[in-house]
């Protein structure tokens, strides 16, 4: 209301000057708005275009073999995407396996269990986790988490599974340094939790209270309300939220670069170092030229395709998730 009154005052002051409202200024303003909106389209097209342009030499040199080759030899200029692609997908999947249950737990806690006075501070704490820069997660992962993880998880587990058929391969650390694909997955899980949790919480909050109350009214336990009322109501949005988290995990760079160990080979053990597309680009791009640079661009192109595919599905499922 005050804004309206102020506006009236402004209008009265400028009324004389605006006897003939200038069509030009109005058009100009609308044009600027239109152009700015179109710029968003062009930026996205520009990202794809520039990456394909940069990647072209690698794609024409290696063809489809680029996808299936696991070579990464700077001397002989042989490059392949397989280890990085597998590392990216593996780390992101581990992040989902670990992060999604935690996110759902937090969302359930905040919407169903948390006492009213604690709700806002707890929700804010979780959301603040989302604004911590990824490089800080990298430092935390490398200097705080990795030593603990090596000592209390990698060493005991490796000793336990040594010599066992399948587990002895997947869960065996040749050098228990704490860094590796699983460590990256865990750090990524921590990074996606605030996103998935806060979107899920919003979706759960939007479910009419009447539904929840009637379920409690017929004697349902919290578990039954969550399992049979809330989850079915919000399932599409929750899957969308998980996909958003996946999109973030796939493209995350700095935190992963710190903790994944940056090994170029393919290993069957999730305790062993590996690399993701993003970490490989971050590590090598500044020293690269020629075919190596182009191959890194080609990796970027693959990342673009994978993440945008995931993000588009996610955004179709959660039409309007929030910004931060």
């Amino acid at each position, binding site marked *: 209301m005050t804004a309206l009154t102020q506006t009236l005052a402004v209008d009265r002051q400028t009324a004389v000057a605006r006897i003939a409202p200038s069509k030009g200024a109005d058009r100009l*303003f609308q044009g600027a708005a239109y152009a700015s909106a179109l710029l968003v389209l062009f930026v996205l097209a520009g990202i794809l275009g520039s990456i394909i342009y*940069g990647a072209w030499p690698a794609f024409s040199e290696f063809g489809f073999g680029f996808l299936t080759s696991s070579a990464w030899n700077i001397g002989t200029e042989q490059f392949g995407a397989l280890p990085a692609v597998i590392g990216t997908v593996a780390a992101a999947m581990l992040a989902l396996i670990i992060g999604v249950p935690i996110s759902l737990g937090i969302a359930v806690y905040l919407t169903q269990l948390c006492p009213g006075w604690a709700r806002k501070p707890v929700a804010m704490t979780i959301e603040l986790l989302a604004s911590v*820069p990824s490089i800080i997660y990298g430092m935390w992962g*490398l200097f705080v988490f990795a030593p603990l993880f090596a000592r209390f998880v990698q060493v005991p587990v490796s000793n336990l599974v040594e010599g066992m058929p399948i587990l002895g391969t997947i869960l065996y650390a040749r050098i228990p340094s704490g860094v590796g694909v699983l460590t990256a997955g865990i750090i990524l899980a921590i990074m996606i939790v605030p996103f998935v949790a806060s979107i899920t919480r919003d979706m759960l909050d939007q479910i009419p209270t009447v539904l929840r109350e009637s379920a409690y009214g017929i004697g349902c336990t919290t578990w039954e309300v969550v399992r049979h009322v809330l989850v079915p109501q919000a399932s599409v949005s929750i899957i969308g939220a998980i996909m958003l988290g996946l999109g973030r995990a796939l493209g995350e760079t700095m935190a992963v670069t710190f903790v994944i160990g940056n090994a170029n080979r393919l290993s069957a053990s999730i305790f062993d170092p590996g690399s993701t597309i993003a970490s490989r680009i971050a590590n090598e791009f500044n020293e690269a030229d020629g075919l190596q640079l182009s191959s890194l661009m080609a990796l970027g192109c693959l990342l673009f395709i994978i993440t945008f595919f995931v993000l588009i599905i996610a955004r179709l499922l959660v039409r309007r998730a929030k910004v931060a």
Partner: protein
Amino acid sequence: MDASNPIATAGRAPTVSRVRPGRRVADRVLILASTIATLLGIVVLGSILLMLIVEGVKGFSPSLFTAPTPGPGSEGGGIANAILGSLVMTFLGILIATPIGLMAGTFLAEYGRTSKLADIIRFLNDVLLSAPSILIGLFVYTLMVRPMGTYSGWAGAVALAIIATPVIVRTTEDMLRLVPGPMREAGAALGAPRSLVIRAVTWRAASAGIVTGIILALARIAGETAPLLFTALNNNSWFNANLLGGVPNLPVMIYQFALSPYPNWQSLAWSGALLITVTILALSVVARFVIKDQRPR
């Protein structure tokens, strides 16, 4: 899961809740698990802050804010050049992103509304919002660094602007949509052209929310490292006033110094990390308090 007869259970222990044990166990497990999940989140944030404070405060001294970063293996020095470089690039990034984001958000909320084009732009903006920032670094590298033949603060600022813009577009649109239609109609009824109604009525009514969006964007780009790696790079001295050549900045400095073998560099990295995290968390908290009353629900 549980085969025992509920009536028998109730008969055996009439004072206990009449909920079947299986149901009760599932319920308790859920409550326990979700409480632990929440505690885990709080513990991780606490642990990160504790680590930063313990390691970061040690390096605090006046020279941290006055001296440039030292060479490899040498003692002393500070991170003043990185702080200034970060401030300059973040500020330039916001300066580029704000008008574009504001106008694009205005288009979506006021002009485009439900048109096909607005729908597409809105959707792609949401996708861009969570696009991997390293790809934006590659884009700006191809767009600016390669043609110009040098890393530059301008390239860094443009990369940051590309990350900030979708945030501003999104919050601006959301906030403008909260402004009631009758206010626009009242403006129009007074004979104000559409652009004046937008500037004097809707923008003004939504100003707090729009400012929040800009603060959120600021918090988002202040700690971005990946897009600066190939655009602004880093530099162990003061940078050129024309921003050409490597421009030192906190995130890339932290990345390089934290992984270096020199204790002095590591200590500077910790101090920089503390500084940047506290700044970003403060910005996010401020943004949340401003947005509190306006968040769309």
